[in-house]
């Protein structure tokens, strides 16, 4: 088996001011809620630093470690030590090849990378620290539970470039690769704008998708910019209203649907008016195909007593009901 890293067992104290911290992934972990720094600092306050930091000596390494020393493990311990005003810190100096470092980072983080977003951000991080595509494909993708091929790496990198607010949302909801990828086809500005609505409307996974699809379709159809869409009177009115979050969400959904399906919405309104005017008083409901494709009305009666059956029969032959049904059918 290839030996990928050599750990020098001595623990030395060095000045950490010149350390290269570019291998720090903890910011992403915090963003995703996978790491709680405050809690960790509390534990260090009690126990102090028990494990030495790990640094690599760039001179003994491959092409991506450029500084004299790079910290690979212990970023938060270092931050705590800085906060405490320490001058020195215990470290282990390791010699690692690029692939050895990659294996080390994987062993450190892989158990945390359970969602598509977390994996995407980790893969992007690996590229940012200078590990080449092929090494990532060969070494990192399978341990992350992914098939090792370039196309899949590229898809993850596209996901990693989504706006931060959306990434945390997708991570929390544990969205699949396919779902996350769908967002990558949407205008970035639109995604940012929609995520900014989160404090006013309830965004479920399906509603978020519906909003993105609908708004980008409306914008494209009408050659409209994102800001112009949010200036549409009905949209502004709903989003700026004082109603509660749940009602606002429902109302916003209705407005979006009206704008996306203007023809269907108009005809549905007309059909409902006919239903109300002609069939309102009768003891049955009329259902039609809301896509307007099929010419088929379903007449539904709810009967509790046998006597109600004759009411239903006679109501069906009422000229007003017949006229209503005839008018409804004329739309199909």
């Amino acid at each position, binding site marked *: 088996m290839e030996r990928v890293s050599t750990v020098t067992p001595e623990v030395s104290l060095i000045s950490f001011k010149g350390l290269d911290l570019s291998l720090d992934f903890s910011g992403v972990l915090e963003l995703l809620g996978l790491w709680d720094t405050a809690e960790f600092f509390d534990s260090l306050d009690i126990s102090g630093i028990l494990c030495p930091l790990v640094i690599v000596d760039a001179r003994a390494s491959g092409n991506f470690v450029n500084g004299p020393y790079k910290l690979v493990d212990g970023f938060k311990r270092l931050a705590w030590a800085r906060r405490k005003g320490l001058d020195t810190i215990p470290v282990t100096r390791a010699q690692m090849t690029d692939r050895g470092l990659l294996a080390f980072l994987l062993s450190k983080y892989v158990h945390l990378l359970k969602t598509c977003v977390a994996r995407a951000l980790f893969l992007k991080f690996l590229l940012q620290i200078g590990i080449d595509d092929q090494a990532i494909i060969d070494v990192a993708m399978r341990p992350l539970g992914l098939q090792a091929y370039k196309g899949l790496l590229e898809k993850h990198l596209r996901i990693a470039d989504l706006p931060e607010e959306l990434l945390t949302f997708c991570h929390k909801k544990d969205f699949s690769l396919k779902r996350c990828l769908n967002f990558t*086809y949407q205008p970035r500005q639109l995604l940012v704008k929609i995520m900014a609505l989160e404090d006013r409307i309830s965004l479920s996974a399906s509603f978020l998708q519906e909003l993105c699809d609908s708004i980008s*379709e*409306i914008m*494209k*159809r009408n050659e409209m910019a994102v800001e112009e869409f949010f200036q549409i009177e009905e949209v502004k009115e709903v989003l700026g209203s004082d109603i509660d979050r749940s009602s606002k969400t429902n109302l916003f959904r209705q407005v979006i649907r009206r704008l*996306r*399906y*203007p*023809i*269907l919405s108009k*005809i549905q309104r007309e059909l409902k008016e006919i239903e109300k005017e002609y069939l309102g008083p009768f003891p049955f409901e009329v259902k039609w195909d809301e*896509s*307007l*494709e*099929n*010419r088929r009305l379903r007449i539904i009666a709810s009967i509790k007593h046998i006597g109600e059956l004759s009411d239903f029969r006679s109501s069906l032959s009422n000229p007003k009901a017949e006229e209503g049904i005839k008018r409804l059918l004329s739309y*199909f």
Partner: protein
Amino acid sequence: MKFKSVTVHPRLSDRNFVRDFDRYTLAEQSPKFSDYRQGKRHLFITSKKGGLFHICASLDPRYICCSTHVISHISNCPFECTYCFLQNYLTDTTLTVVADTDAIVEEIFHKTSLQPWRLFRIGTWELGDSLAIEPLNQFAIDLVSRFKSLDNCLLKLRTKGSAVEPLLDVEHGGKTVISWTVNPPEVIKREEIGTASLEKRIQAMEKVARAGYPIGLHFDPMIVFNGWETAYEDLVDAIFSVIEPENVIWISIGSLRFNPEMKKKIENNYPASKITAQEMVLGDDNKFRYPRPLREEMYSLLLSFLKAAGAEQCFVYLCMERWNVWERVFGRCPRSIGHLDYLMAKTVHERFPNSAPQSPPKDLYMALTY
């Protein structure tokens, strides 16, 4: 059209059309491409394996379908229409042509002779354009010549191109219909990339009409855009200011439709195209279409333009539409798919007796099941 590579099956290496290619490789297998666009640049000419003759795959009993038959011997197309279903259909995208006329005609003859009373309209456009691969037009010529003697068959070549010259001197006996998919110049420019302009298509129509071929017109897919109404009126005027309605055997009308997976493909492959951004509904056949009221408006308006252009004598039908749409557009609808098949055979027999010499037996058509 310049191909990056041409591969010819060794069994076809002695065919005339092979000599038209400067360079080609002999191989039994397709070079196999998976990228839709990449495959368009690599031609594989092969021999026939298995059946190629069947009824149009779009046939769905929930819609009225013209029940045309097809020879699926072309796969992929050098043109690049944004709405083309092939971008979500082909596994091997290599532009493949089965150029084995004898074997194809034998299969057609064998299958169509089982129903000698029936007029088989047979297209070659199911998975590609009939006349887009110019070096292979010799193959189209062979088919035209062979169809001349197939009594109950009518060959349908359908194209968005204009390469008709090689067909003009062929003895066709009225047994080949050359058809064009037509759209306004705005749509051709934006959505039918690499195809012939409307002007060139109409010039080509004029040439084949002079050569005595019946012409088919397919206003399909009709596409909505700002000013579509005037654009389709101008389109009809442009065609019928040059082409006599007497030369037009049939006219089909249909609107843009695609399945949900295709929607994503179109948006990814052609991000500038706006065709997927229009209001659409998902039909029973899992295809998005414009809402029915809009489709009816489009068809009715087009029909009025056709009537105004004197084309009411042509057999006009809707492609893949619902019964109620037929009723609302035409005021009537065929009673079944078999009935439509009969009506088409009847009109061809009456208007183009050379194309369909025998009178169609209504009862047999009406008894057809699909």
